[in-house]
């Protein structure tokens, strides 16, 4: 009974959202905010256009490399600061402070250093993404119960065995949370980068649409990005729950 109730509730919510959208469309006008139904049909057509495909590919490429960097740097920092007490104690507040800053103000610096091409977006995305990965990895390692390490020693494991068979599995759930959050944050960083002084990528495409008053295109691209991010997050969350269930 609760399952069907939940479903109907969600359905009602979706209907309400669409109704509000329709009302806003009436108020704002077609050029500003297209109506829901035309937008849906446009969405189907848009996805197959060459313009969309090439911009999506650009964003995907930047995102992929930014994510690799963010994960690599984040894990590196996280493991070091988690294992080395003093570095962790000194560095954590610095990272936390950096996390809450409006990093957009550093984008011009990133552009000056890395140039206007793909490297700028990759660097900016990684700048956003490495922080949650580092902070959560550090937390995960610190949270490993000391008795695990003592057990590893009484079982006479080699350092390598201790790391791979005890420390890694013990830290994995929380590290994965960092990777999941890093995923969304890196995507945001890349898109932000594309919205400023860029000619390629979905972020740039939205800005162009805005200046050309192509609101249908704008809204559909935004929706597609939302759906992508939401789905990816759902998948990662599912994996995360499987990892956490055994802890």
């Amino acid at each position, binding site marked *: 009974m609760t399952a069907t109730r*939940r479903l109907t*509730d*969600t359905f*009602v*919510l979706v209907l309400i959202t669409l109704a509000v959208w329709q009302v*806003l469309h009436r108020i*704002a006008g077609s*050029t*500003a*905010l297209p109506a829901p139904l035309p937008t849906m049909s446009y969405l189907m057509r848009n996805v197959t256009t060459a313009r969309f495909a090439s911009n999506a590919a650009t964003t995907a490429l930047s995102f992929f490399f930014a994510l690799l960097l963010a994960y690599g740097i984040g894990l590196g920092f996280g493991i070091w600061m988690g294992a080395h007490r*003093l570095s962790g*104690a*000194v*560095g954590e*507040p*610095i990272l*936390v*402070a950096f996390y*809450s*800053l*409006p*990093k*957009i*103000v*550093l984008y*011009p*610096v990133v*552009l*000056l*250093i890395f140039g206007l091409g793909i490297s700028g977006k990759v660097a900016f995305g990684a700048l956003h993404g490495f922080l949650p990965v580092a902070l959560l990895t550090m937390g995960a390692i610190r949270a490993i119960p000391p008795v695990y390490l003592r057990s590893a020693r009484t079982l006479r494991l080699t350092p390598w065995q201790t790391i791979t068979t005890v420390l890694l599995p013990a830290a994995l759930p929380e590290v994965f949370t960092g990777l*999941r*959050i890093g*995923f*969304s944050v890196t*995507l*945001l960083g890349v*898109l*932000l980068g594309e*919205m*400023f*002084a860029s000619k390629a990528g979905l*972020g740039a495409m*939205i*800005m162009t*649409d*805005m200046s050309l*008053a192509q*609101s249908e295109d*704008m*809204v559909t*691209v*935004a929706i597609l*990005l*939302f759906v992508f*991010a*939401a789905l*990816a*997050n*759902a998948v990662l*969350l599912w994996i995360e729950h499987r990892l956490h269930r055994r802890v």
Partner: protein
Amino acid sequence: MTRVGWLRVAVIVALIGALELACRSGLINHQTVIPPSEMAGALWALLASGSLNADIERTLGMIALVIALSILLGFIAGIALHALPRVRQALEPFFATYYAVPIFIFYPVLIAIFGLSVMPIVLIGVATAVVAMIIATLNGLDRVPGVLGKVARVHRLGPIRTAVTLQLPAAAPYLFTGVKLSVSYGFIAVIAAEFILSPAGLGRDIADAYADFNNRRMYALILFLLIVATVVNAALHALDMSFAERRRGGRP
């Protein structure tokens, strides 16, 4: 300050010092990054001249407005949702996914609707910050111990007195976390919006300075925003930590 605190100061000073040296020695191109001392000097000159005051007022004013609105609306919405568990449950997946999605990408759509004015900036700012406050409010209200309600009935307190004297203080530490997050999201969203596209404001100034190759002005402005944001966030964080004791119930 503790030993770790001094070490941290030393690390930060060392990093800034290294940057200074690298810039002055020519290791870093003057076209790319200017020495921190020059940044500070340029900022001082700008502030002293008063030419920045209008933009400072505008940007900080908008941030303050966004924060105030987010906290107020978020708090009220949180209370309302807490009283309507079925609606809350239906919205749960929405809240869970909200910050995984690049909400900011909607900013250009808002500009298309409202034109290039303060409205889109305020709206995107509130949209970004309000959900954090809603979640924190729900969290805080969840964690009000059930026994407090019974205590209130034993003392025959009315609903308003119960809310104000018992539930609010019990939920306060969690509410404060929401405030802290709203502030930091408010800064991030408003400045990003000004930077990407805005008629005026410090974010717009930085974008203009970048386009004009005016590094001194650009770095001075960047420094200013970084300092303001860091100081405000740090102060709130310190306050939040003092609440953390209460959140854990005094347990270490």
